[in-house]
């Protein structure tokens, strides 16, 4: 009857979101008076999960699962849920977890709520708060089936440490035929992704041209941040589509979002609503972004950004 959580890893290391969903699962388990079981796929050392409330880990080690397969991973998770008689399955909002969650839901005949931002307000009926209308509103939703799948929005619940320890056992689910085969992966290993970043530095048309992005990248480097951009910038081909943030691009839920030369169209603001702290740098004090931001600098990016880089370097050197 435990709560099952899928804790994602990459090259044998847990992603930060794994600890967040584990923390969330612990909160649900406490409400329901039960324990937390995690399922990991080709993860290395799983003892860390105990720090976030996991009581037991089911370790899947299978070289057939070295490459991600939504179908096969979903099947493993469903089999684990059945073995553990878990009625609640928790997953993250990573690209992979959002890919597999609907498949798990059908496999378990479970209702699925995605983009959930808080622990359930009630477990009977099971009621969660999720974002809707691309972060312009929240929706209270009940999951009415016996089995339930909850997708937790990134960086919404946070990490909650608890001083437990997790036992660990091997788990060998049967692997279905894989109908979608990964042929190649193209991923910059030296860069933080927008999804995993604590800080995102984003720039817009105010940068006047792609040749001026050097300072944006330098600022991101100093902060260990990911770079992003507004829709016009990606439409103009100044930056790749994968950096486009907003309603039709990527949602961002980082701790800090720095917007440079972005006016703040409603569609852009929707995509970054979940960021905790927002900073805007813009020459136009009337730019709508100033209404959405926590901190603002009215000024020319070409002067403010180099100054910010210099000051941050000094700050980092001092606080290193």
């Amino acid at each position, binding site marked *: 009857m435990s709560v099952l959580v899928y804790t994602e890893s990459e090259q044998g290391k847990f992603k930060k979101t794994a600890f967040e969903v584990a923390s969330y699962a612990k909160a649900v388990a406490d409400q329901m008076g039960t324990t937390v079981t995690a399922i990991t796929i080709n993860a290395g050392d799983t003892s860390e999960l105990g720090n976030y409330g996991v009581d037991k880990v089911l370790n899947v080690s299978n070289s057939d699962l070295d490459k*991600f397969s939504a*179908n096969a991973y979903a099947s493993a998770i469903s089999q684990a849920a059945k073995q553990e008689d878990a009625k609640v399955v928790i997953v993250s909002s*990573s*690209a*992979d977890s959002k*890919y*597999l969650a*609907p*498949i798990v*839901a*059908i*496999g378990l005949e*479970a*209702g*699925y709520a995605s983009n959930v931002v808080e622990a359930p307000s009630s477990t009977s009926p099971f*009621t969660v708060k999720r974002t*809707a*209308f691309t972060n*312009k*509103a*929240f*929706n*209270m*939703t009940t*999951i009415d089936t016996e089995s339930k799948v909850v997708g937790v929005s990134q960086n919404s619940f946070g990490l909650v440490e608890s001083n437990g320890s997790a036992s660990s056992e091997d788990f060998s689910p049967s692997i279905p035929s894989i*109908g*979608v085969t990964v*042929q190649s*992966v*193209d991923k*910059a290993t030296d860069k*933080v*992704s927008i*999804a995993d970043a604590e800080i995102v530095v984003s720039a817009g048309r105010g940068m006047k041209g792609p040749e001026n992005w050097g300072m944006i990248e330098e600022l991101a480097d100093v*902060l260990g941040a990911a770079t992003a951009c507004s829709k016009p910038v990606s*439409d103009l081909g100044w930056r790749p*589509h*994968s950096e*486009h943030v907003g309603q*039709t691009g990527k949602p961002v839920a980082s*701790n*800090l979002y720095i917007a440079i030369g972005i006016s703040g169209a*409603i569609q852009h603001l*929707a995509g970054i609503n979940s960021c905790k*702290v927002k*900073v*805007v740098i813009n020459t136009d004090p009337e730019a709508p972004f*100033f*209404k959405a*931001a*926590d*901190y*603002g*600098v*009215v000024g020319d990016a070409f002067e*403010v950004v180099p100054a*910010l880089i210099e000051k*941050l370097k000094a*700050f980092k050197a001092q*606080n290193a």
Partner: protein
Amino acid sequence: MKILVCISHVPDTTSKINFTDGDTKFDTNGVQFVINPNDEFGLTRAMWFKEKQGAQVTVVNVGGPETEPTLRKALAIGADAAIRVNTEAKDGFQVAKELANVVNDGGFDLVIAGRESIDYNGAMVPGMLASLTNANFVTNCISLDVDGTNATAIREIDGGKETVATSLPLVIGGQKGLVEESDLRIPNMRGIMMARKKPLSVVEPTNASAETNSVKFVKPAPKGAVTLVDADNIDELINLLHNEAKAI
């Protein structure tokens, strides 16, 4: 190849989001509805398959009669036929069940949906539909080619992309990148005239029921005013971000 493009009827991206009936219903007053942007990229890619590979393209929506103008727009863009499943679905699962019924009845090889709708953002219908119809499934899809029954797709992943090989029957969760923004088509007068004569069939729903239920909507708390920092005083910005916001 028979392609089904799933069309969500959603508020335009600039819409003000308000609620009525004790915050239980979306307030459609003064709201313009459009084809869900993620679906529109898929529809445009389907037009390419129609023009280059002779595919037949049907569009489908699960919804009430008020969604028909959105389906007509898809016909004006170039789809051959439209289907409306006449029900107000309560959740993504119910939509997926109705769509599965349409897919099985129509014998579609390729279903192109958007990765998510911009209203409820559930991101669940394409995956559920694939599972319910035993089709292969690729979501966050930014490139799709089909050769016979084989397909190659590119999927956006966190921090990069991934090329996958798969085969029909296939369900796609599409997004920008399937075609470029500049490839999107605005219906012309001829398209609009022809769309009036194209078949739009209304089918009655199955007895599928929802698994989740929307209880109410909540608007985000109003945000406090911005703290302005002088452009000549960047030290103060760093101080605020470090000591007050604890963000660096």
